[in-house]
């Protein structure tokens, strides 16, 4: 399946291991990526906070570029925040013809235009795996079932709320996809209070206390539920959960030391890739224990 691929900013900035992992994992699942290298930042909700029209126009531009990709089934993103911010803009663009043509007016000089089409989609890698590739197809390609690995899913707010905008009417169990995928990869999903909560990243510069207490509490809950690691489809969550974890630990006054994987890394492990190829040595919180478990699996 060919998709127009929007990697987002963070996966090419602070979390290069995510971008690299997707590049390796996608072909193994027969996903052909055509990267939208001219596309712009989704705005992460901040541009919309400044000007809704600007955010809608910038994302309409990305959609238009994606719609121009020959033979693409749709557009794929690898970030919960991109998914949420883009879905919000798409909702407004699709709701009103006049508004859409006004926004498209800004794109005209470039010869671009976003067309509303019922069957055009923009899906996060997670949604794509479950809904387009199919978990059976994923399961067939697993060469290293992650048996015994206890994984705590962390979705990221933008990919689970608001349910109405995010297509839950049609796909009511989008908030259980990570657990379903984990089962397909042979891992054990861990249930804990924090899985649909907030990592706190959006207020890290404005309300650090609130931000890191959120990150710290969700990690602590995963720890108390005996998880070996957490996994997230959102690189912004990853920043707060991994990069900021040493700091977050202070805000909840306890030791954490919880490895946090990007979803494509975990898929890659089950497909037989080595931790190093997936950039698992590039995290702030070491992933050695997870790596050791994986090595034991390979030996067994």
């Amino acid at each position: 399946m060919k998709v127009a691929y929007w990697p987002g900013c963070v996966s090419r900035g602070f979390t290069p291991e995510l971008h690299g992992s997707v590049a390796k994992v996608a072909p193994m699942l027969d996903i052909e990526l055509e990267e939208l290298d001219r596309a712009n930042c989704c705005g992460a909700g901040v541009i919309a906070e400044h000007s809704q029209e600007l955010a809608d126009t910038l994302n309409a531009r990305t959609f238009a570029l994606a719609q121009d990709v020959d033979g693409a089934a749709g557009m794929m993103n690898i970030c919960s925040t991109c998914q949420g911010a883009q879905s919000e803009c798409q909702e407004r663009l699709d709701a009103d013809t006049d508004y859409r043509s006004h926004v498209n007016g800004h794109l005209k000089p470039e010869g671009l235009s976003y067309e509303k089409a019922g069957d055009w989609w923009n899906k996060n890698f997670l949604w794509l795996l479950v809904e387009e590739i199919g978990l059976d197809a994923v399961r067939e390609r697993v060469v290293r079932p992650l048996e015994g690995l206890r994984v705590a899913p962390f979705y990221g707010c933008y990919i689970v709320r608001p349910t109405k905008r995010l297509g839950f009417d049609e796909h009511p169990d989008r908030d259980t996809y990570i657990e379903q995928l984990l089962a397909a990869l042979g891992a054990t999903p861990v249930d804990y209070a924090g899985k649909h909560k907030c990592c706190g990243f959006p207020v890290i510069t404005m309300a650090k206390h609130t931000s890191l207490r959120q990150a710290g509490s969700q990690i602590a809950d995963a720890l108390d539920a005996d998880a070996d690691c957490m996994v997230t489809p959102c690189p912004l969550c990853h920043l707060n959960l991994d990069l900021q974890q040493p700091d977050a630990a202070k805000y909840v006054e306890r030791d954490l030391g919880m490895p946090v994987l990007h979803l494509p890394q975990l898929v890659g492990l089950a497909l037989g890739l080595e931790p190093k190829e997936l950039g698992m040595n590039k995290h702030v919180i070491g992933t050695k224990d997870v790596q050791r478990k994986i090595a034991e699996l390979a030996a067994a």
Partner: protein
Amino acid sequence: MADYTLKLRRFDPESGKAAYWEDFGVDLPPERSVLDGILQARSRDDGSIAIRCSCQAAICGSCAVRINGKTALACNTKLGEAQDMARSRRGREEITVEPMGNFPVLKDLVVDMDAVHWKKVQRVVPWLLPEGDPPEREYIVPAEAMIDITQSMACIQCGACVGACLSLEADPEFIGPAALAKAYRFIGDPRDGQHEERLKDLAEDPHGLYDCTHCFACVEVCPKDVAPMNQIMRLRRMATSDYEIKDKNSGYGHEKAFVNLIEKYGTLHESQLLPRSYGQGSLIRSQVDPSSLKQLTASLPTVIGGLKSGKVSPVKALIHHKLPDQKQIRRIFHEIESEDERLELNLYIVGEEATEEEGAMAEGKGSET
């Protein structure tokens, strides 16, 4: 066997016992509400079950609880739907009902609304503060000027958003979604004369405008589509763009920094976002202004941690390539920023237009009659 099993969270402070779960069987059809179920259990099995309710029609806002973990009005949730949710979400038959989060519990399902919700609403001065002498007769405002605040006026003060708010969970002092939506009800009202003062007050409060983590929990649970988070975003937009309030929480700086970076590079240049945010959007100011310097150094261990782990390469931190089409992004920025009015599409107010099929159906109907 009963039609449904309600698993209620019981708590009586006078008993000296800790909270516990208790099951009640109820016999009602699926379209009846969870509240009907609780009331049946109360009249048939245990008269001491405490729940607050009145209208039983999603109007009075008294009966917000957590059903299967999700905050909702008990009178507005059907037993059948709640059971489906319990099965699919939690893999069990019983419907769990517990008091809302973020509130102290008074008894069973009744929470202390005064201690949290009403206190926070009071905080935002929830009445009109007009300027000058009142007019002889009524205030005259054009109807369009009021349309925008009808969404926040739809609030029934049920506190569901407060119970679900994820920033409030981490910071109990956060002013919270309902009160901030209430604040917008007055800041968006043309008759109020204290817009700037109100905004300043909320922007400077460390638990105010910039303490909302954008988690959509309030949007998700509100039974009246008030979308408190959207009202908070409107307040921020006014604080930064209309009044340029340079708050000490760096809310202004963060927004300016982000927007300027995208204008300049097209994609996010993260290593500059932090210093620029603390310097009210400017990279230079962040180096010379003592308060921004302090905030920046406070975040240094994190950045150094990033460098050490090999995650952030020094080259990456310093050089950020512009998009090949950066000229286009700039053009779009200037086109939109130079418009006289900010264009906003509020779907709560304009609604979604009918799809072609629906439209055709409506037309078809019209020609028949």
